[in-house]
């Protein structure tokens, strides 16, 4: 649906040329919710703005539905943009217009007739749950309601793609959840492909199918959400995971624990989440597990469990116990680097 090919974007600043995006390839499949996560300054915003050419990439191509839109005329580009809705961190609504007009004005400007405009405003105001607020002005609405207006405005064009530029970053956690819920509904019920950028791991966790981790203008990790949460590869990805669950113990604590055994992180995925493996292991082998921390992360397409456990026992027996875990589909990581007696 969206295919970015070798996108770079340079900005000229007083201190020379800055590469905000540096050779990115990205493929967003039809119907999926693809999340791009990165710290501020990683180039996420520039990247998403390259998708509808609000920002023209310095080099590279942008394919929407297999058409390279970087080579389109302004007129054809406008037509393509009509298929791509976009929502923003700061909503970007007309302050001087009611909710109704905020949704209807773009439709009128795009040439829809009055009855069609009316029909669509009613339909999409209902989908976002704002039917009661059609006569209100943005200043009378809460942040979450403003974002709903923006979403209705984007949906009213009946786009195939929705770009979300930090749409929940200005909202409180509860409102964020409600908006994410809405995006998920849009994706499921209207079949709209969503590309979103965020710096919040819980956004990725709740609604994304696929994830790209961005750092210094490049994708450092790309995988499905489940893979990312169960087998993070890149240090930046791990750092992001730590923001939603404590995955790491401090080195000094691990050292202290290593005096009497090994510290292991077990990651359970899919079927393995249902088995009482820890209990089995302590029966079969001469090891005594002590759970240090445990959590479960519910993703859009599955569940990932994490247990950090202190295994008390001789190193060669612990090794056998770990093998048993692996055979049962649990991935393991020895914290502190090696096994201890």
């Amino acid at each position, binding site marked *: 649906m969206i295919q970015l090919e070798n996108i770079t974007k340079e900005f000229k600043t007083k201190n020379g040329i800055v590469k905000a995006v540096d050779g990115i390839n990205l493929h967003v499949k039809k119907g999926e919710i693809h999340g791009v996560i990165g710290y501020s300054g990683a180039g996420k915003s520039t990247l998403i703005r390259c998708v509808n050419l609000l920002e023209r990439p310095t080099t590279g191509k942008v394919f929407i539905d297999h058409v390279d839109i970087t080579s389109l005329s302004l007129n054809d580009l406008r037509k393509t943009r009509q298929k791509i809705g976009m929502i923003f961190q*700061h909503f970007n609504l007309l*302050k001087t217009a009611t909710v109704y007009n905020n949704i209807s004005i773009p439709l009128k400007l*795009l040439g829809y007739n009055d009855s069609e405009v009316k029909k669509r405003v009613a339909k999409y105001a209902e989908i976002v749950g704002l039917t009661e607020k059609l006569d209100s002005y943005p200043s009378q609405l809460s942040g979450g309601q403003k974002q709903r207006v923006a979403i209705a405005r984007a949906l009213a064009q009946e786009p195939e793609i929705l770009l979300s530029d930090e749409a929940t970053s200005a909202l409180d956690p509860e409102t964020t959840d409600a908006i994410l819920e809405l995006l998920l509904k849009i994706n499921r019920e209207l079949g709209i492909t969503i590309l979103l950028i965020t710096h919040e791991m819980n956004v990725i966790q709740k609604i994304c199918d696929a994830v790209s981790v961005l750092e210094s203008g490049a994708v450092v990790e790309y995988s499905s959400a489940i893979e990312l949460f169960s087998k993070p590869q890149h240090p930046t990805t791990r750092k992001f995971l730590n923001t939603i669950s404590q995955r790491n113990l401090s080195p000094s604590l691990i050292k202290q624990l290593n005096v009497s055994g090994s510290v292991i992180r077990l990651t359970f995925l899919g079927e393995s989440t249902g088995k009482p493996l820890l209990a089995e292991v302590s029966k079969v082998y001469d090891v005594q597990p002590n759970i240090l921390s445990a959590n479960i992360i519910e993703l859009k397409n599955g569940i990932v469990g994490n247990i950090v456990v202190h295994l008390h026992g001789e190193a060669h027996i612990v090794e056998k116990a770990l093998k048993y875990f692996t055979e049962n589909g649990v991935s393991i990581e020895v914290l502190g680097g090696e096994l201890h007696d």
Partner: protein
Amino acid sequence: MTSIQSFFADWSDVIGKSILETFQMVGISLLFSILIGIPLGLLIVLTRPGQSFENKFLYQFFNLFINIIRSVPFIILLFFILPFTKLIVGTTIGVKGVIVPLVVYTAPYIARLMETALLEVDPGVVEAYTAMGIKRRHIIWNVLLREARPSIILGLTIATIGLIGATAMAGMVGAGGLGDLAYRYGHLRYEVDVMYATVFILIILVQSIQSLGNRFAAKLKKD
């Protein structure tokens, strides 16, 4: 009481005529100034670096042009452009003769006020509309000008009041008006009452215009 009655009996014709002249001058020159000033303001905003019709040459040219005209005090401008006035309206005296300098004086001022008003509009909204595939001229009309309306109204209010001040000097070319009345009768002929009355009327006029502008702007502004 009788003195006020006799004052009105003596002066109401003259004052009435002056008010009419002031209204004529302000009304006509405001109309032309808006017709020139708003597009000019729009032009310097749109040709600005980073805007949709970025054009360094045009931007710098109009910027300089506006600054030059705005540097000249009205009383000087009035005489400075006499040949131009003659060329445009065929005369340099009377209400007709003063309209041209008033427009030349006010239009660049309105352009600057427009510039400020338009630059206040959230560029994010323009971006949102661009992302929706909406034509630039539609964006200019339905986003830029629409969102700037409250500031535009306030700007025009300021310009109108400035214009009233400038018309006081119109007497120099025999165009009359309230300022001229206060100057000729009040100052030159020591008819202090006439001066007071004129100043009073001007205060009422400026007050009403400002309140009207404020109220209208507040009605359009929704935050």
